[in-house]
């Protein structure tokens, strides 16, 4: 962990793969040795065929024992090949399963230390990709590519060695053919990267166009603009075809040549032509020719897996680089000298924060939220309301100034303790794939069933839960298991009530709800906020008209501050917003 953290971020190349695989180095080495030995044993049956042919040509009757011995050797080779191959695959898969598991645990652990803001920006998709896609590409390398590369190399070396031993001139002919194949292959792959980039871009455009079409389908259909949007899709497909054609045009000849030279038939033709010429001149024994016919012809085929494996390794490197980049992401600094807050009041002291380091999303905000009181944050969209509230649980750390709870800077409070001291009730409800009871209990692990039920009652969700097929034991899936938005929201409020955290942060908690579920959620919130330090972000001003204090933000700055009546008298931004809203409601 420490080592990877010291790596500069963005480092790719083979290094990342090697570093991540370091813990299973021994297994991989064993796997490679076994692959190597098994590949060598795999050629033995072919050599046995060649040697049997030699004996038969020599003196069949006189070498009866020797012939049967070679049958035995061939059988032994086949058996050893099989056993070693299976062993190598077993070791590879064992190590593979172990390292994938360990890396996933490492990722999960590391994620638990990243600033929460990262999750907001990256989304759960990125977490999922690291935990599945990227790792699976590494798996390809460990489980398949390594063995294939080692195996193909061994076959090449052993077979070439044998052929050189049989006849140097003929072996050189075969190697010449293989060399030509290699050269043409390299030529055909030379410009691959450039073309790949263009193809990948075209692919992304196709994907974007199809997503755009599907997302905008209502517009597409009701405005009859299907043709226009489909044209975008068609253009993307055309571009892909063109990009592909451009690549093909460039490599057509070289790849046809590499295909031709890499085929068994070319080797067969070369071996037969050269061999017969030598036999005719008495420079080569027929037995040696047969050896080449048996062993050399299969060589091109045994190299093919190495080509696929090389591509797998390339992908694996990319996956490893992604994972390492994630692991190298700086964790949220934990305090060296942790302190415990001396109360539940919140104090913003000239707080500024910038997402990009250029413009401040909130700037120089100072305010005191007294314990047990309600502080509302209002303002037009984009004013910085959510940003300001998310500094409190340290989704992000302030760029300047200080944010204190009970007189202690939030950065000096251990993050688990900080988070446990507040309930966050946001619009996007996060439920766990677990039972209803556990979803509430996570607010205070160890709480008894009676307490869970009490919290559910206070959150006005008990009756809803009782009506579920398995009551509190009902399992919720990612989509919330048939609960409506308001019911899901109340479940998270029950969680918050159970936790009893002294600080409550509400962000538009009722905004996305139907009016009927809204009133139930409101009653639940009323129970949650009793005697808590409440910080609430609101769009609908009437909900916070009775707040102890209202902070009015505009363009990241604190424009006004005060109680509802005071702000109305001042006749500023708040008064204007209020008038606009009342105008609608009146």
């Amino acid at each position, binding site marked *: 962990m420490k080592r990877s953290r010291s790596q500069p971020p963005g480092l790719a190349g083979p290094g990342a793969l090697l570093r991540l695989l370091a813990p299973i180095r021994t297994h991989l080495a064993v796997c490679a040795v076994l692959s190597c030995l098994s590949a060598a044993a795999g050629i033995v049956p072919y050599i046995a065929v060649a040697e*049997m042919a030699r004996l038969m040509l020599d003196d*069949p009757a006189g070498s009866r024992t020797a012939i049967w011995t070679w049958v035995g050797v061939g059988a032994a080779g086949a058996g050893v090949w099989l056993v070693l191959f299976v062993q190598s695959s077993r070791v590879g898969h064992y190590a593979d399963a172990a390292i*994938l598991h360990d890396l996933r645990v490492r990722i999960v652990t590391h994620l638990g230390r990243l600033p929460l803001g990262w999750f907001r920006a990256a989304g759960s998709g990125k977490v*999922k990709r690291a935990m599945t896609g990227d790792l699976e590409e590494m798996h390809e390398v460990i489980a398949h590519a390594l063995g294939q590369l080692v195996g193909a190399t061994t076959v090449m070396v052993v077979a070439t060695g044998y052929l050189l031993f049989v006849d140097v001139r003929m072996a050189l002919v075969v190697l010449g053919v293989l060399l030509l194949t290699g050269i043409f292959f390299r030529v055909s792959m030379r410009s691959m990267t450039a073309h790949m980039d263009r193809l990948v871009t075209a692919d992304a455009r196709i994907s974007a166009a199809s997503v755009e079409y599907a997302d905008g389908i*209502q517009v597409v259909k*009701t405005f009859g*603009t299907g043709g226009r949007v489909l044209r975008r899709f068609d253009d993307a497909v055309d571009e892909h075809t063109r990009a592909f054609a451009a690549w*093909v045009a460039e490599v057509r000849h070289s790849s046809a040549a590499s295909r031709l030279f890499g085929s068994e*038939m070319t080797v067969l033709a070369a071996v037969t032509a050269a061999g017969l010429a030598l036999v005719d001149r008495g420079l080569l024994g027929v037995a040696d020719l047969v050896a080449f016919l048996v062993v050399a012809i299969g060589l091109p085929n045994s190299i093919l897996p190495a080509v696929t494996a090389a591509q797998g390794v390339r992908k694996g490197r990319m996956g490893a680089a992604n994972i390492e980049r994630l692991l190298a992401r700086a964790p949220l600094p934990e305090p060296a000298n942790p302190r415990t807050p001396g109360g539940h009041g919140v104090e913003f002291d000239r707080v500024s924060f910038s997402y990009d380091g250029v413009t401040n999303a909130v700037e120089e905000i100072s305010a005191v939220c007294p314990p047990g009181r309600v502080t509302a944050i209002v303002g037009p969209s984009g004013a910085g309301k959510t940003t300001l509230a998310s500094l409190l649980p340290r989704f992000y750390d302030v760029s300047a100034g200080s944010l204190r709870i009970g007189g202690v800077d939030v950065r000096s409070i251990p993050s688990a303790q900080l988070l446990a001291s507040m309930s966050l009730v946001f619009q996007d409800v996060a439920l766990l794939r677990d039972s209803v009871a556990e979803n509430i209990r996570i607010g205070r692990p160890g709480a008894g069933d009676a307490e869970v039920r009490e919290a559910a009652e206070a959150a006005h969700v008990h009756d809803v839960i009782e009506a579920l097929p398995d009551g509190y034991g009902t399992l919720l899936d990612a989509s919330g298991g048939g609960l409506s938005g308001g019911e899901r929201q109340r479940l998270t409020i029950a969680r918050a009530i159970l936790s009893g955290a002294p600080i409550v942060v509400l962000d538009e908690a009722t905004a996305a709800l139907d009016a*009927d579920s809204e009133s139930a959620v409101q009653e639940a919130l009323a129970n949650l906020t009793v005697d808590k330090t409440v910080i609430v972000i609101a769009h609908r001003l009437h909900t916070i008209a009775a707040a102890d204090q209202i902070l009015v933000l505009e363009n990241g700055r604190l424009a006004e501050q005060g109680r509802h009546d005071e702000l109305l008298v001042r006749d500023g931004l708040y008064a204007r917003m209020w008038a606009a809203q009342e105008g609608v409601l009146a």
Partner: protein
Amino acid sequence: MIRRLYRLWPNPKLLARLWALTAAQAVLQGLLLALLIPILDAVIRPEPDVGAATPWLVLGAVGALLYAVLSVVATPVGFAASGTLAAQLRRRLMRHVSTLTLGWFTADHKARLARAVTADVGNAAHLAVTIGGPVITSTLLPATIVVVTFAVDWRMALLLCVIALVAYLALRRAARIAEITEIELERAAAGVASRAIELGQAQPVLRAAGHAEGTPQMRAALEDHRETYRDGMRRARRPFFIYTGVIMAGFVAVLALTAELLLSGRIEVATAIVLLVLAARFLEPLGNLIELIGALRALRNQIARVEELLATPTLPVPAEPVRRIAEADVEFSDVTFTYPGGDTPALKGVSLRCRAGTTTALVGPSGSGKTTVTRLIARFFDIDSGALRVGGVDVRELDPGTLLDEIAIVFQDVYLFDDTIEDNLRLARPEATWDELREAATAARLDEVIERLPAGWRTRVGEGGAQLSGGERQRVAIARAMLKRARVVLVDEASSALDPENEAAITRAIANLGADPGRTVVVIAHRPATLAAADHVVALDGGRVVEAGTREELLRAGGAFARLSSQYERARHWRIAKADR
């Protein structure tokens, strides 16, 4: 498999040509190997006589040349095939999808479409070309060799037949087990994936609960994946072991049979050697087949996903559709409808009428069927029984294009194309003049939004309209409806996620929509102001119409609507602080 691939492409000639070329190459390969019989026969003599093999060598040279030509011809065909096939299939898929009903486009289906149109089609086209070759070679070449071997020695030929048969059975078993393992692995991987998503979404909760290092469930999912993987590999190894064992045993049997036949004097030395060479060439490609089953399975899965999309039925279109309606009335009479795959009807015996020039407000708790009513009007789905008429014509008799021409939809999540505001509006009527654009924008209260934007009308709105707030996007949708002069406008009012400014603007804009005497507005209402402006209120509950009338009538009646209204009132006057303050 071949048939399925063939059916998938509108123009399969390319694929057929490619496969025919590959097949010809495989057979030619076998025949060229057969030429070794007379050639070896000529040289395996006490005095090798290459001259005697000359005719065969000439034939071989011609064959090899032919093979080279086929090789060179096949390469570009293969390339072209994989490119063209992908493009063809992509177009076919999108064309098909564009005929599907709006109701089909759920998040899940959209994700499937995106996957099919990019990854699945691309991989399938690539695999159909790259895997097709080796599969054909690995089957046709051994088959050709068996036939040739019959000409040399029937016993060896029989042995090869037996090996091929046993290998085929072992291969089938291996494929079956690999498939089961894959399903289990996918299940375990899906478990990890969904826990990963949960980890991303619920991170603050998990940390507060002391699960910063992952929940026990997360750990269990990881353990499960590791065990499933190990277990699966263990099981998949066996059939692989058996298949390769069969090939190896075959090899040894060939060696033994050749030795036995030669040593017992039943065949000549030359024949023995020819048999050994042929058998080696027979077994090698056969052994490679097992490497291909993984890719074949992947291909099959990809094809299946594409096929599934292509098999989605479209809404039936009448033979002689009605292409014009006189008035834009909307009428439900005794409509019952159940969502595909649902068990309880979303609407039960619903009858209601929305007259042209009026605004009808739909109210009711969530799940009462409000949204379903609007969806059915736009024919997202077809009703199960009863009749749904627009302009007096059953929507199923209407030309789908005509129906959609008359309708504009303003839903809660308005999607905008990543274009300028102007272009997004012009979608509704490409030939609109500037005056018309401005007029629509003003009526939708979009003018003030445009004024504020950095580049005014030419401001790009970002993917999906990300640069605008939800309320602002709704105003764009309303402006489009105005510009389109749609006679039926369906509005799903944003429930409450609006800031005061947007709320006021949208209420005004909806009122403006309803001001047109020829227009029928159906709005799913969440705000008292909208309800107050409606001519007619329909209250739904549990998929039935429970009340209908003007707002005043329903309030007086004291039924469901009155209850709902008081709930609205309560929500509206709710204060986050304690009541006594």
